[in-house]
């Protein structure tokens, strides 16, 4: 039942020679979990993941919590870290597409972005401050749809729960989120361009194992890595 | 009118007390510490449900396990003065006294006026706005008294309501209380350790010992013929036990003998002798007193102009003589002397 959680398994203290500490955005849980196993098979080195919101991860790194790799769900937090010189050069390793998400059976009969403007529907999206919200705003502007949302979720999870419970008739979230929510929701592809955001990762400055760290980065960018990512709905940069 | 038989167990005391108090009657409940007086009060008030028996006030049944009847305290026409006051700490003295009337639906200012009147009667008119914590022990007790009396209940239960009062206040409050009780139509039960309170206030005494009634009757009866050491001590009488040993003779367990006026009845006897009837002498006295024996002074207690002398020996008695004669005789513990009692002063009855 828990592909994601059965992935990583903790070793000794953070900072052991044979352990790579990876801080990654929560939406990468499943994909990275799988890649972690691959990495361990290849290099015989345990990978310890700490998944969380990109911003709380940023705090940890800024405050010097030992880590080797940071993978962010959006350029924002990464930029802060680069500016602070807390990480090396970031690379974009995947992108994520926006989708309209509706409850199973699409009770609201939503077909395209235009429908999000319909008053009788309860529509939610991410808050403009968070990546998925920022993208959503852009897309809607370009499509010339002014849909006043009923809620601007700070967190994709909260948005998904609402849609899955039928508390919202439609919302804008990432493809990967739609997948993870299983059969309680349906995703509707957008043809609009620019409905994507970049996932970036970088080696943390002062990592004791920068060698291993960059190896992990390249694993993620390798064919194998990209296959795994795509199997969870991410796209190549 | 109260008619009750309270049967219940607290700790290892098994209480079984029958009580009947007529309208307008005041019954004093006396008894040693731990006899069950407070428990009886709690049972009558509905704070300690009965296990058996019944509580009836004015023929209304308030508690009767056999019939499954139980009227909760707040629905009973009672008022209680608790042994430990139990004033409400967060209310002013006035609010405390007004509480009973208020919660029985009397309007605020009426209740307060009544309360003020009563606080005045117990001499606390100037403390109305204080908190109980600011009162002295005796003041608190008077507030508790006022709080109960102001509600004019059908059954009034007073648990040692005067214990903490000073001599003067006690006199005042006692006659105040007496006047009030005379005015009331309901039944009143007074728990006290003070014989004077009992004698002054009560029409009838009920003596409770170890959860059972051991004696009851008018103050005079009880005072005259105590059935137990407790009552004897209470009324300051000497109580001896013995058995008939001749036409006019009673023999005591300690070995002594006393001559009595009338032929004593058969069986175990009780002898009551007033301390004032016991005279003391340096030397063997001649003359009328039929009983004279040598005794040793065990203890001397002075109170006011009188002295109580406890005597040991074959006839253990307490004698009461004036301070003057005590000085004259030079009565001190350890001294030996002669004691006399007139036969007519020895009151004999079956025990």
């Amino acid at each position: 039942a828990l592909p994601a959680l059965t992935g990583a398994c903790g070793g000794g203290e953070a900072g052991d020679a044979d352990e790579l500490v990876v801080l990654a955005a929560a939406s990468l849980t499943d994909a990275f979990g799988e890649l972690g196993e691959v990495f361990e098979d290849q290099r015989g080195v345990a990978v310890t993941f700490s998944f969380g919101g990109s911003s709380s991860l940023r705090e940890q790194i800024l405050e010097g919590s030992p880590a080797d790799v940071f993978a962010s769900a959006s350029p924002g937090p990464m930029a802060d870290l680069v500016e602070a010189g807390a990480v090396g050069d970031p690379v974009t390793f995947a992108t994520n597409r926006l989708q309209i998400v509706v409850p199973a059976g699409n009770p609201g009969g939503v077909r395209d972005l235009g429908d999000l403007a319909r008053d009788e529907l309860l529509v939610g999206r991410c808050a403009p401050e968070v990546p998925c919200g920022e993208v959503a705003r852009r897309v809607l502007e370009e499509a010339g749809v002014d849909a006043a949302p009923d809620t601007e979720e700070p967190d994709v999870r909260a948005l998904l729960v609402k849609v899955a419970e039928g508390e919202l008739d439609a919302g804008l979230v990432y493809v990967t989120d739609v997948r993870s929510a299983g059969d309680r929701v349906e995703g509707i592809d957008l043809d609009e361009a620019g409905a994507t955001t970049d996932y970036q990762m970088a080696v943390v400055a002062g990592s004791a194992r920068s060698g291993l760290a960059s190896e992990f980065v390249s694993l993620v960018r390798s064919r194998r890595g990209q296959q795994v990512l795509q199997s969870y709905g991410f796209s190549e940069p | 009118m109260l008619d009750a038989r309270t049967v219940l167990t607290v700790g290892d005391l098994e209480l079984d007390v029958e009580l009947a108090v007529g309208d307008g009657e005041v019954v004093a409940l006396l008894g040693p510490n731990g006899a069950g007086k407070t428990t009886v009060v709690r049972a009558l008030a509905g704070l300690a449900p009965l296990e058996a028996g019944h509580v009836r006030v004015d023929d209304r049944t308030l508690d009767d396990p056999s019939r499954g009847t139980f009227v909760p305290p707040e629905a009973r026409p009672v008022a209680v003065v608790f042994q430990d006051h139990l004033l409400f700490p967060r209310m002013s003295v006035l609010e405390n006294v007004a509480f009973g009337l208020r919660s029985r639906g009397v309007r605020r200012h009426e209740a307060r006026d009544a309360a003020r009147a009563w606080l005045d009667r117990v001499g606390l008119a100037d403390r109305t706005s204080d908190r109980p914590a600011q009162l002295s022990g005796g003041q608190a007790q008077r507030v508790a008294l006022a709080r109960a009396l102001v509600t004019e209940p059908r059954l009034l239960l007073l648990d040692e309501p005067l214990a903490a009062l000073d001599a003067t206040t006690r006199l005042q409050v006692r006659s105040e209380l007496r006047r009030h009780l005379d005015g009331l139509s309901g039944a009143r039960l007074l728990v006290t350790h003070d014989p004077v309170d009992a004698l002054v206030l009560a029409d009838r005494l009920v003596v409770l010992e170890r959860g059972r009634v051991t004696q009851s009757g008018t103050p005079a009866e009880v005072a005259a013929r105590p059935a137990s050491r407790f009552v004897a001590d209470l009324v300051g009488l000497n109580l001896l036990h013995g058995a008939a040993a001749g036409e006019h003779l009673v023999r005591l367990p300690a070995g002594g003998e006393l001559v009595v006026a009338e032929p004593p009845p058969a069986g175990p006897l009780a002898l009551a002798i007033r301390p004032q009837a016991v005279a003391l002498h340096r030397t063997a006295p001649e003359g009328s007193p039929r009983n004279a024996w040598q005794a040793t002074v065990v203890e001397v207690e002075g109170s006011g102009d009188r002295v109580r002398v406890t005597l040991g020996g074959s006839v253990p008695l307490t004698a009461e003589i004036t301070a003057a004669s005590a000085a004259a005789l030079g009565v001190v513990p350890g001294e030996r002397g002669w004691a006399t009692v007139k036969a007519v002063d020895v009151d004999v009855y079956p025990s």
Partner: protein
Amino acid sequence: MNPSAPPPRREVRHRAPLVLVAPALLALGFLLLPLVGLLQRAPWSDLGPLLGEPIVTDALRLSVLSATAATVLSLAVGVPLAWLLARVPFRGRSVVRALVLLPMVLPPVVGGAALLFALGRRGLVGEPLHEATGFLLPYSTWGVVAANAFVAMPFLVVTVESGLRGADRRLEDAAATLGAGRWTVLRRVTLPGALPAVLAGAALCWARALGEFGATVTFAGNLQGRTQTLPLAVYLALESDREAAIALSLVLVAASLAVLIPLRDRWMR
């Protein structure tokens, strides 16, 4: 207690024993150090303009309002519940007593989801309610209040219950013999006696509600002026501009101090 009674002319200082003071200071340090850290990082210069921004003022207003509403609600129904748990013996009471704590144990998001299950548009009670009246809790300020109350009420209930247990039953007996029914007894004797507990409970409840985040966002969503409380604003700010986030948290802190200090000062003596 009594204004007319003059305070003792002379306050005698008993020295407090080290065995107590040392750990106490340790605790204090542990609780306050992070705040110091926060203050250090605070962008004092931005603070001024920030407070002007409508998004902040809206959020602040909403936070204080909903937290207060939730507390009032909790007092209205939570105190009776506490009384029930403390005074009325019934079967399964201990289970209920533990159940009351559960909203604290649930991770906020799950708590919010659970609220949706119950009061949402498709919820157990929410659905019939919505169909009958068209009233919808989520996305409304009432939804925020509900979420706050759900998360914060347990603190009030538990604290007040412990207060009621501490109260002297004999005083209640005395009140009963004076003809006071249980409601009067509670109102005039028990609660005044348990006042410290009630106030503590209310303070806990209010503070917890003010900081509530997870359940609110999951149940009520996040819309400026309607459902966006300060903690939500902070969370969002954290995404884009952490300086602002810290500043906003300080606003939150200041607001709570502004309410709590006078309140407890007034009553807690």
